């Protein structure tokens, strides 16, 4: 049973006995309700303390720590709240590394607790000792090892603050077993002071004024909106700004959903597998307004051809992103919501960008996304398009990494933010299914669909256990091409069809596998069957696994080949 915040916090008893009790209290104070934990020797005291308070938490036991942390990421992406993970020392902690790196590069707020061996043996290569602080320093926003019990409440509070403010990110707290097990006083201070961490939230109005002036003398502006808009909950402000001034909008992969996919001003996703219209708009624009995107290389392509004639304005809460990859003329450091508010305040009248709009709309019309669905067999693009049509862009969609991910980004046109869960920066196979579990926990009443490849699904499919156990109605759709499709595509195009280790010679029977976990499983091979069965399967009130057999040789188009510029897309027409 999960209680309201007040009720939840009232249950804090004022007689903690051990460091572990103190830790659990700190979690209650931080209003944590969902926990993704996996026990082990070094965290036995913590799990024991949790046992006493288990009525206060929704605890989810994944079957691999990687599953725990990807679930926590999905939870964070959809709820906007920090995902909380607990794992044991050594292998438990190292099993989290991929997820931590993933959360770091995609700016997801996580607070990760790892057990550590007793302080007396740290540094002696003790049983299940790993230097997780050393290992995770480059992939955490911050990390701590607790050395004194009295520091624990402050550290936990700092960790939640750091993870969720400024540019969000993962924070790890390493807790030696003796700290958790030893008795401690009733109460320790939890107030903190972080003089070196003061994120700039409100933008400098003078910088916004420069943006205004640039907009007033622009003829061809375009907005590039990234995940920063979602973290700032600034989607409404973004839509209002774009509509007021009638400026076309491009999304990054992770920004999808911050602008409605069917909006007239929307040009689609930019970058390697973006739309021709989005990329040409960036190529031709004279004023690129980047709001909360980090100019990742999958977006920019060859930097020499990226927005070559544009004045670049970049709004970002992380000043280190500004000017990192792309030369920026108008830096605006701040939260996207505050920036858009300030823009609304300062910018009233702008020129008519009608000609420019007509120009880019023409690209949209002349170069739409395309695929050719054969009569007898299914292809991935079509499958995802059908899912989109059936759910009207309202489902929460998580994906794994590969072709199906790019097709989902292309064909699933989100109406709203916080409904798109994908691993962008790290491109982590194995992410899609567990992250859907986290998403479903964050939004229990919503339809959650995990669109995965047959390759990536096999990296974390053991989490099927949780679906039945927690009665989570996640719908898994395997876009099954019997290959590591994206690798196969690159080998076809850039390695003269030398398919090195990218085609599976055997496949498990995914339906039987689902059934083994008491999940309803269905194999579908024909477009007819798919169309007929999809509505029922999505409406089923429990978990479903659909093994959708698709043609292997399909490629993701259009595409910017490696090293090429954003204007040099291939496969733009059938």
């Amino acid at each position, binding site marked *: 049973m999960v209680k309201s915040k007040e009720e939840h916090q009232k249950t804090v008893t004022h007689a903690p006995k051990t460091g572990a009790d103190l830790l659990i209290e700190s979690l209650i104070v931080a209003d944590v309700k969902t926990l993704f934990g996996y026990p082990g020797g070094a965290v036995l005291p913590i799990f024991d303390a949790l046992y006493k308070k288990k009525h206060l938490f929704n605890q989810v036991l994944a079957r691999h720590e990687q599953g725990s942390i990807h679930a926590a990421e999905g939870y964070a992406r959809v709820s906007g709240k920090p995902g909380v993970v607990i794992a044991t020392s050594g292998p438990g902690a190292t099993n989290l590394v991929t997820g931590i790196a993933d959360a770091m590069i995609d700016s997801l707020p996580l607070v990760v607790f790892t057990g550590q061996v007793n302080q007396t043996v740290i540094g002696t290569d003790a049983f299940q000792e790993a230097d997780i602080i050393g290992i995770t320093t*480059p992939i955490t*926003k911050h*990390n701590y090892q607790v050395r004194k019990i009295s520091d624990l409440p402050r550290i936990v509070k700092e960790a939640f603050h750091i993870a969720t403010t400024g540019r969000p990110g993962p924070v790890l707290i390493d807790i030696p077993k003796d700290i958790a097990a030893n008795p401690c006083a009733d109460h320790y201070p939890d107030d903190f002071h972080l003089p*070196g961490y003061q994120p700039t939230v409100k933008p400098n109005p003078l910088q916004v004024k420069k943006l205004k002036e640039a907009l007033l003398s622009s003829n061809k502006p375009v907005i590039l909106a990234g995940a920063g808009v979602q973290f700032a909950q600034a989607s409404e402000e973004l839509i209002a700004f774009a509509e007021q001034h009638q400026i076309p909008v491009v999304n990054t992969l992770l920004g999808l959903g911050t602008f409605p996919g069917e909006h007239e001003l929307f040009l689609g996703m930019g970058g390697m597998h973006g739309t021709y219209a989005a990329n040409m708009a960036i190529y031709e624009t004279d004023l690129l307004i980047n709001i909360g995107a980090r100019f990742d290389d999958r977006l920019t392509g060859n930097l020499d051809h990226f927005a070559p004639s544009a004045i670049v304005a970049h709004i970002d809460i*992380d000043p280190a992103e500004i*000017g990192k990859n792309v030369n920026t003329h108008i830096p605006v450091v701040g939260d996207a919501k505050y920036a858009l508010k300030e823009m609304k305040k300062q910018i009233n009248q702008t020129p008519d960008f009608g000609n420019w709009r007509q120009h880019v709309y023409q690209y949209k019309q002349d170069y739409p996304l395309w695929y050719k669905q054969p009569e007898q067999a299914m292809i991935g693009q079509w499958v995802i398009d059908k899912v989109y049509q059936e759910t009207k862009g309202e489902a929460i969609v998580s994906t794994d990494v590969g072709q199906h991910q790019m097709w989902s980004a292309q064909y699933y046109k989100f109406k709203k933010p916080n409904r798109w869960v994908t691993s962008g920066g790290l491109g982590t196979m194995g992410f899609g299914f567990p992250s859907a579990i986290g998403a479903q926990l964050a939004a229990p009443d919503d339809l959650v669909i995990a669109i995965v490849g047959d390759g990536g699904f096999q990296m974390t499919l053991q989490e099927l256990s949780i679906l039945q156990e927690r009665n989570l109605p996640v719908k898994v759709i395997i876009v099954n091409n019997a290959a590591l499709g994206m690798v196969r595509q690159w080998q076809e195009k850039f390695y003269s069809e030398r398919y090195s280790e990218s085609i599976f010679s055997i496949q498990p029977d995914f339906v039987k596998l689902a059934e083994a976990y008491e999940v309803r499983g269905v194999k579908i091979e024909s477009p007819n069957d798919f169309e007929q069965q999809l509505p029922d399967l999505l409406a089923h009130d429990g978990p479903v696994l659909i093994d959708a057999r698709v043609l292997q040789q399909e490629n993701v188009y259009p595409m910017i080949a490696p090293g090429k510029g954003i204007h040099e897309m291939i496969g733009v027409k059938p």
Partner: protein
Amino acid sequence: MKRIITAKVSNRSGVLNRITGLLQKRQFNIESISVGRTEHEGTSRITFVVDVEDYQKLEQVTKQLNKQIDVLKVSDITDKAIVARELALIKITSNAQLRSEIQGIIEPFRASVIDVSKDTLSIQVTGKSEKVEALIDLLRPYGIKDIARTGVTAFLRGQQPQASQDATPFSLLR
């Protein structure tokens, strides 16, 4: 180009590891790094000499350093009026006959002999890096057995020139 960057940091565990790790991960070349406590309890000053290609890279170094939670303040002081010093200990081969000759060499550098053995002589010198280099070059012919250098440590002079920094670039390391 070589730049002198100072960072004030909270003395929390792991801070040095985090900083050197980030410089390494982002491929910034560190010439030298020196660390010590400051006048405020709980804070240290790190002085880096970094070799960066251009101003964009330089900006990245300072921004990435600033981003660390335990870093309080980062300044590129290369173009300011600063005092920058380094200490070097130099052990050379020497015998009784050579001692006075060496004395004559090191005197203008205001260096001093801090240890003597039958066939070695240890010299301590402080100053700008160029001065230290110059002395080492002069001593080289005698046979250098060992060198220990602290790396540059630096801070701003008490008074900064009124003119803007760009008008009178004052750079120790050019």
